[in-house]
C-alpha cells in the first residue's frame, strides 16, 4: 500500500539533520545551472547561435575575397580598367578590418542570444515553474541573482567560444587572398574577445527586459526593436539641421552602435566612441534593464 511505503520512506528519509545557517546562494546557483542544462531549448538556441555566427561570418569573408579577386584580375568598372593601385587599396582595407569581417555574423547572433536571455526568465512564467521556484527559494533577490549569474556565465562562455570560432573560420577564408589577420596584430584580440562580451551583454540586456515583461514574445520583440530596428532606423533617418550637432553624435548612442564599437573596426571612423567607452555605454543600458527587472521581480506578485 502506498500509504505504508509513504510512512517508512518519510520517517527513515535521508534528508539528514538540519544544517546550520540558511539555504545558500551557492545552492540556488547550482539549481539554476541544472535548470539551464536540463532543457533542450538551451542547446538548440546555443547551436543556432554558433552556426549563425560562424556561417554568416564565413559567407561575408568569402564575399570579400571574391570582391578582391575581381579587382585583382583587373575587371572593368564603368568601362575603365581598374589599376593595380585600387586593388591594393581594397586589400589593405580588408586586411585592416579582417577581424570584424569574420565577426559579421554577430549581427544575427545578437538576436539569437536575445531569445535565450528572454527564455532564461520568461519560461519560468510561461510554464508556471516560477511558482515552484519561489516556493522553494522565496528570497527573490537570491533567485534573481543566481539566475542572472548562471545565464550570464553561459552566455559569456558561449559568446567567447563562438567569437573565436567565427574569427578562425573567417581568417581561413580570407587567407586565400592573403588578407587575413592574426590575434597578435593590434586590436585584434580585443575585437574577438569583445565579440564574445557583446553577445553576453546582449543576452543580459534581454534577461533584464524579460524580468520586466515576463512574456517571451514581448521580450523578443522589445530586444530586437532595441538592438536591430533602432540601428536600422539610425541608418535612414535624416541628419539634424547643420550647426546643431552631428548625426554621429546621435548614432553613437544607439545600443547596437555603442555595443559593437568593441568588435567593429575602428579604422573606418563610423564609431565616435572608443571601443571600451562604447562598450561601457552598452553595459550601462544592460544594467538599467537588469535593475528595472530586479525591482519588478522583487515587488510584483509572481
Amino acid at each position, binding site marked *: 500500500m502506498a*500509504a505504508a511505503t509513504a*510512512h517508512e520512506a518519510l520517517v527513515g528519509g535521508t*534528508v539528514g539533520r538540519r544544517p546550520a545557517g540558511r539555504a545558500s546562494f551557492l545552492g540556488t546557483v547550482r539549481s539554476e545551472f541544472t*535548470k539551464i542544462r536540463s532543457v533542450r*531549448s538551451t542547446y538548440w538556441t546555443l547551436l543556432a547561435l554558433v552556426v549563425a555566427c560562424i556561417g554568416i561570418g564565413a559567407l561575408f569573408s568569402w564575399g570579400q575575397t571574391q570582391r578582391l579577386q575581381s579587382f585583382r584580375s583587373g575587371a572593368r568598372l564603368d568601362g575603365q580598367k581598374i589599376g593595380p593601385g585600387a586593388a591594393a587599396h581594397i586589400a589593405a582595407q580588408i586586411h585592416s578590418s579582417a577581424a570584424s569581417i569574420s565577426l559579421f555574423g554577430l549581427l544575427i547572433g545578437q538576436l539569437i542570444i536575445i531569445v535565450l536571455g528572454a527564455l532564461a526568465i520568461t519560461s519560468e512564467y510561461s510554464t508556471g*515553474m516560477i511558482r515552484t521556484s*519561489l*516556493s522553494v527559494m522565496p528570497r527573490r533577490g537570491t533567485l534573481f541573482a543566481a539566475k542572472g549569474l548562471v545565464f550570464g556565465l553561459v552566455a559569456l562562455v558561449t559568446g567567447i567560444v563562438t567569437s573565436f570560432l567565427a574569427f578562425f573560420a573567417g581568417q581561413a577564408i580570407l587567407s586565400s587572398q592573403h588578407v587575413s589577420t592574426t590575434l597578435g596584430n593590434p586590436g585584434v584580440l580585443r575585437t574577438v574577445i569583445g565579440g564574445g562580451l557583446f553577445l553576453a551583454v546582449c543576452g543580459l540586456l534581454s534577461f533584464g527586459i524579460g524580468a520586466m515583461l515576463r512574456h517571451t514574445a514581448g521580450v523578443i520583440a522589445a530586444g530586437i526593436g532595441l538592438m536591430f530596428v533602432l540601428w536600422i532606423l539610425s541608418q535612414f533617418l535624416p541628419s539634424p539641421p547643420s550647426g546643431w550637432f552631428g548625426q554621429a553624435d546621435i548614432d553613437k548612442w544607439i545600443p547596437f552602435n555603442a555595443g559593437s564599437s568593441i568588435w567593429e573596426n575602428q579604422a573606418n571612423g563610423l564609431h565616435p566612441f572608443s571601443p571600451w567607452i562604447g562598450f561601457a555605454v552598452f553595459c550601462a543600458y544592460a544594467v538599467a534593464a537588469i535593475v528595472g527587472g530586479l525591482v519588478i521581480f522583487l*515587488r510584483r506578485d509572481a
Partner: protein
Amino acid sequence: MIEAQGLTKRYGDTLAVDHLSFAVEPGRITGFLGPNGAGKTTTMRLILGLDRPTSGTVTVNGKHFSQLAWPMREVGALLDAKAVHGGRSAYNHLLCVAQTNSLPKRRIGEVLELVGLTEVAKKRSKGFSLGMGQRLGIAAALLGDPQILMFDEPVNGLDPEGILWIRNLMKALAAEGRTVFVSSHLMSEMENTADHLIVIGRGRLISNCTTAEFIAANSQQEVQVRTPQPEELARLASAAGATVRDEAGDRLVLLGLTAAQVGDLAFENRIRLHELAPAHASLEQAFMELTAPSVEFHSGLPDPVERESAHAGEVA
C-alpha cells in the same frame, strides 16, 4: 503551524481575501473548504509569499515564509500540477528544486519511489498525465521532509485510485505529527479526510471548527416517505412544523420531524404510507447552503445543489 491575522488581498476591484484570521495546527489534516473563487488559492499564495497581502500578515512557524532558513525543510507545497517546465525530466525537475535547499541527491530517488514515478524519472514531464503531474508536485513537496504540507485541490481531476492514494498519504503525514493543510471545493472529500475545517466564501471566514462539530451543526434529519396522499401529508407535516424539501409524485422529503413523528402523524390521520425512511441531509448540501450567499458565480441551471451533490457523490 500557519497563522493568518486579518489577511487581506485585493486585486483591483476584487477583494479576493477579506480579513481572514485562522491557525492551522500540527498533527491533523485541516481542510480548507470553499466554493470556486472563494480565495483558497490566493490564501495559499499569500502563505508562500508568491503574492503580497494588501494588509494583514501570515506566518509559518512564527516567521514570514521568506525568512525561513531552509524553506523546503519546513514547508512543502503543491499549488498545482502545472508548476513545472514540461521540457525537463522528472528527475531534473526534482534535482533543481532540491539543490536550492542543499538537499542530498539520494533523497530524489526516495521521493520518486514514494510517489511511484521511478520508472518515468528520465521522461520529460510534458507527457505526464494529470495524476502523474500531481505526483511529481507532491514528490517535490516531500523532498525536504517538511513538518508542514500544503496541497491546493490535490484530488482535482484524479481517478478514484489517485484520490485514494492522496487521501492515504495525507493521513499518513498527519499521523506522523505533521501539519497538513489541504484545500478543496468538495465537502464530501473533506468529510472523509479532514480533522478540522476552515470554511471560506468570498474571501471571508465562514466557519472554523472540527469536522465532527461541523457535521453536528450542519447535518439535519430528513425523512423520506412515499404515500398515495402526498398533498395531504405535506399539509399536515407543514402544520406540525416540518419543511417539505422535495415533492415528486408520491414521494416526499420532510425536514424537521423524526421518522417516528411522521409515522404517528400519518397513522392518526389515516394516511397510508408505502415507505418511511430516515436519512441524513448530505453535508454537501449543508455546505452549499452555508456558502450559497457567497458563491461568486451562480449557474443559470435550475438546481445547482442537486447537480453538485451528484458530482460530489461520483468523486467520493
